[in-house]
């Protein structure tokens, strides 16, 4: 149009870039079908995925930070017959696009190297770009139809990746459970949009914002919790997650756990905060309760686990719980008009989304490196890898510290912000949340501490100690691509931990749009510290703490070097004078978890240990039998399955009736209808 300089980057242009990016990814998927069998195929596809994703992340970052970039959606002629597909950024989707694509780009770079281990690339490579495209489509969608198309497309592509190694029955089962639960969630979201759209079907998000939700908004909340929660992995809808995430190839697991669940979080925020009008205060109650249970149960499940990838998957459940605690608080504050507090809680949640996407994918990539080096996922059969793969061990350690919410890494910052939000909750006017929030806070603290325990166990039994299996003893460090990707992620974990102010500031637009409030601009604070409410109230300076630790450590080291003796003798382990025993005597991952299992697990998992000691003189071996129940599955899923099976069995008889009996059915139907007709009038 006249008067606009062609050089200026308009929102519309950005949205167009984004749409092209998605299209490009879909093209890559098609290309993947053709080249996947070639030797170079996987490298080409993964490499270009990395490029496209970084481009998308850049565009989205610009859209997030550039002033005055409001939504001016690209309208595509495709999509719903009764309305056009609209793609575009608003601050929320821009923020999530950045998070998703940043991580995805790095993971794709890892996959360039890791992809070589794939036995059947043609079952992985084509679906990988489709998977990414689906996630971006969900984030960019500005109308219900394309949102759900993206959502289901995403489920479909990731399902194909889960069953990519379909030879193992467990993977097939994982795929089945995953696809069914994902579709169930999508159907509930369908209902939610049905409520929002109303009878004459205003499917664009704008229309939904303008028209008040048809029907009670509580229904929307419930449906959103079910729909988005089932994909995010809220307890008790998490059942598919520990099955599906480990089944996929490790770089895909990283994406599913680190990124895909965040798309679900986005869906929840979009529906509950954006589309379904102003919340009422009690909305926060179910969210907070579910979130607290999720956080605690997730980490406890993880502690019971000795399959490395399953452990990581369960930790995703825990972190989703933490994220939803933040969201629940934000709901409570927003409903009570405490805009700044709401902004704090929301930003804490989204910040944790960002952090978790970083360190969870880092950890899964590390697990992948271990898996490809040893062929083992069972931590009981690993150990001592820190000697064989030092760099992997180092990056994995960084991930462990970050996810355990320990300073100076990023995991701590977001939990610190969440705690700050919790401490603001006495301002809430209602009683129930005021009673609930401290309990939630305790849960949060407890799960953080348990997470630390869990990752001591994970890192310790995987990388430390002595190798428990020849495979672990013969492992070799993984390739350059993978290492550099993991190092990059580790660096990002540290970076986001020491200078969190930038992240918080860049999320200001989101909080403004969603809860109508902002935090003080953090970049104004001296020395890069963050003080969300008021420096006198609470402040944290990650950079300073980090520098101080480093200086203190170096200082100590120097002093010791200067004054201490340098003599160092290698010898057998002391171990209270016991002779050097076989590696099997060292603490395994399940023995490490034993005390915690006895304290918590006996209730939650009905965990029972039975020791059978042979009588003195009897040379038989002693036995320890441990049985742990997945109570959630047994309480919730088994009954449903049993009911469906029972109904199917009952009805199945109808397949085998005789013609006369079928005629009886017809006759009965006829008489019934006639009676109805006869009585209705």
């Amino acid at each position, binding site marked *: 149009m006249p008067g606009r300089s062609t050089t200026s980057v308009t929102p519309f242009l950005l949205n167009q870039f984004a749409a092209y990016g998605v299209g490009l990814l879909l093209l890559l998927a098609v290309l993947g079908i053709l080249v996947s069998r070639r030797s170079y195929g996987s490298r080409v596809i993964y490499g270009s995925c990395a490029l496209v994703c970084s481009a998308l992340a850049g565009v989205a970052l610009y859209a997030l930070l550039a002033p005055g970039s409001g939504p001016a959606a690209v309208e595509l002629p495709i999509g719903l017959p009764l309305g056009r597909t609209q793609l575009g950024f608003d601050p929320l989707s821009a923020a999530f696009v950045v998070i998703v694509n940043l991580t995805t780009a790095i993971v794709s770079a890892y996959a360039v190297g890791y992809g070589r281990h794939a036995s059947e690339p043609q079952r992985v490579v084509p679906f990988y770009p489709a998977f990414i495209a689906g996630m971006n489509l969900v984030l960019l969608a500005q109308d219900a139809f394309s949102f759900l198309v993206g959502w289901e497309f995403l489920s479909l592509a990731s399902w194909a990746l889960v069953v990519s190694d379909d030879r193992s029955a467990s993977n097939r089962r994982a795929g089945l459970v995953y696809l*069914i639960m994902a579709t169930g969630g999508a159907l509930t979201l369908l209902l939610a949009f049905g409520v929002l759209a109303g009878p004459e079907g205003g499917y664009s998000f704008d229309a939904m914002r303008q028209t008040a939700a048809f029907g009670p908004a509580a229904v929307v909340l419930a449906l959103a919790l079910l729909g988005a929660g089932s994909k995010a992995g809220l307890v008790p809808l998490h059942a598919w997650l520990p099955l599906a995430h480990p089944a996929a190839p490790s770089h895909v697991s990283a994406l599913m756990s680190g990124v895909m669940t965040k798309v679900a979080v986005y869906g929840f925020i979009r529906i509950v905060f954006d589309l379904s009008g102003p919340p009422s205060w009690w909305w926060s109650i179910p969210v907070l309760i579910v979130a607290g249970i999720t956080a605690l149960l997730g980490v406890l499940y993880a502690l019971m686990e000795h399959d490395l990838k399953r452990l990581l998957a369960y930790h995703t459940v825990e972190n989703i719980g933490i994220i939803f605690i933040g969201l629940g608080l934000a709901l409570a504050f927003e409903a009570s008009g405490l805009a700044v507090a709401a902004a704090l809680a929301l930003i804490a949640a989204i910040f944790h989304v960002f952090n978790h996407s970083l360190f969870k994918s880092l950890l899964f990539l590390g697990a992948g490196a271990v898996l490809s080096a040893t062929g083992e996922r069972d931590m009981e059969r690993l150990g001592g890898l820190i000697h064989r793969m030092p760099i992997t061990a180092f990056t994995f350690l960084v991930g462990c510290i970050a996810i355990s919410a320990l300073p100076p890494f990023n995991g701590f910052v977001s939990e610190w912000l969440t705690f700050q939000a919790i401490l603001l909750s006495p301002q809430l006017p209602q009683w129930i949340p005021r009673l609930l929030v401290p309990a939630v806070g305790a849960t949060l603290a407890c799960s953080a501490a348990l997470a630390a325990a869990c990752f001591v166990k994970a890192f310790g039994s995987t990388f430390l100690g002595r190798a428990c299996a020849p495979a672990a003893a013969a492992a070799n460090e993984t390739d350059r691509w993978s290492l550099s990707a993991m190092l990059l992620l580790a660096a990002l974990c540290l970076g986001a931990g020491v200078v969190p102010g930038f992240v918080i500031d860049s999320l200001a637009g989101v909080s403004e749009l969603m809860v109508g409030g902002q935090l003080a601009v953090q970049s104004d604070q001296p020395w890069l510290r963050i003080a969300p409410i008021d420096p006198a109230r609470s402040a944290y300076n990650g950079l300073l703490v980090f520098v101080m630790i480093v200086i203190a450590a170096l200082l100590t080291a120097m002093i010791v070097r200067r004054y201490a003796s340098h003599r160092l003798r290698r010898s057998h382990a002391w171990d209270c004078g016991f002779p050097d025993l076989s590696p099997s005597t060292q603490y395994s991952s399940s023995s490490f978890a034993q005390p915690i299992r006895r304290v918590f697990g006996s209730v939650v998992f009905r965990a029972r240990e039975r020791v059978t000691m042979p009588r003195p003189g009897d040379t038989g071996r002693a036995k320890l039998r441990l049985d742990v129940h997945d109570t959630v599955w047994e309480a919730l899923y088994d009954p449903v399955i049993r009911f469906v099976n029972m109904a199917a069995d009952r009805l199945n008889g109808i397949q085998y009736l005789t013609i006369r009996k079928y005629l009886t059915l017809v006759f009965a139907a006829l008489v019934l209808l006639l009676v109805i007709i006869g009585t209705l009038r």
Partner: protein
Amino acid sequence: MSASIGSAALTGLLAIPAIGALLLAAIPGYRVSATINAIVCAFTLFCAGLLYSHRPEPSLYLLVDDVNTVFLIVGALVGFTTSVFSAGYIAHELQTKRLRIQDVRFYHAMYQLLMLAMNLALVSNNIGLMWVAIEVATLTTVVMVGIYRTSAALEAAWKYFILGSVGIALALFGTILVYLAAQERLGQGVAAMAWDRLVASSATFDPALLNLSFVFLLLGYGTKVGLAPVHAWLPDAHAEGPTPISAVLSGLLLNVALFALLRFKLIMAGNAAVISPGPMMVAMGLTSLMFAGLMIFRRRDIKRMFAYSSIEHMGIITLAFGLGGPLANFAGLLHMAMHSLTKSAIFFGVGYISQLEGTQRIADIRGLTRSQPLLGWLLVAGVVAIAGLPPFGVFTSEFLLVTSTFARSPWLAIALVTGLAIAFSGLMLRLHELAFGDSGKHHALPAYRLAPMALHLGLVAIAGLYLPPAINAWFRHVASQLG
């Protein structure tokens, strides 16, 4: 001008299959006859296509309007692709001696007769004529179902025959009642059976007679549609007949019967005093959806399983039309078209699978994506499409249906969603067994044989993402007509 072309096309639509039937009855060689079969179907498709743009003048006996054009074109398309698929399929059946050469001759003649009957049923303006046509279509399919002469096939055909006959009788009674209601106003004779006049003046008919008649029509034609609890013939007929016939049954015949039901629903809708037919259709649709969904779990025969899936989808469509209103009707139409294409595509695939594996037992079929990757993945795509996942068209229609339903009656929407979820789980459970896992076998199947299947799925995928504005406007227009 346009009208004259239209009437020519209409004549062709009926004459070409008739001639084809006679011709094929005369020709012994199956190669030639298979080719001729396909060519005749192609001509029929062409005529149907012409009718989209050129409408003949309606007569007392024949009528072409927007509504039946949709069914005609979808039907002719499926009929054509099926005839192409059937050529290869029948050849294999001959090699394996399951069919004799004279069976094939009979089969081809019957195929065209079936086409004729269905076209006639669709274009007939006279409800009596429509009834006759549907009866003929039923009888032809009955004999085709029994064509293998195995005990199971004969048993299935017999069951189909008896239940079908009862259905026909009920439908006829309903038709007579409608005529009785009409002849008070429209006078005796053919005029009182012409559908367009019935619709025009149904407001003045006697509501009690209309109520009664709809009960009989719903059960009578509902038997043909395969709605529970009068569905019983459908699974066995699909499972035991030749697979092309299963494809035609699911893709066409069910739609034709549903179309008949729609015609009468419109007559009811014209009269304010009648008990609305909507709730009855919704109830039967929902029953079929739930019932079929649960039945899928216990199926061990692959064709029978997909037959139940047809029942499920017919239930959905009936429910949609029962709900009425522009959105739901649009969803119903779209779903009908998409289901025809997808389900026939699936049956094409299933036909090849049962021939390659030499069995229809799901338990004996494993890892198709390994033993025959293209076929396997096409099957996966087909099942994914029929289960209602994007980017396929079924998703679009289910999206519209569910969202529009919730606004009107939440509980119904929840029940609908539950049914969808159940059926979905059942299909996926079986799909995982069929498509994945290790399979020692390796089947060779020339890719071009899969062309019809790929074509259908391609169309469905395109329709899911981009419905051409012309078709879109057309469907919306029809939906608005369906009240």
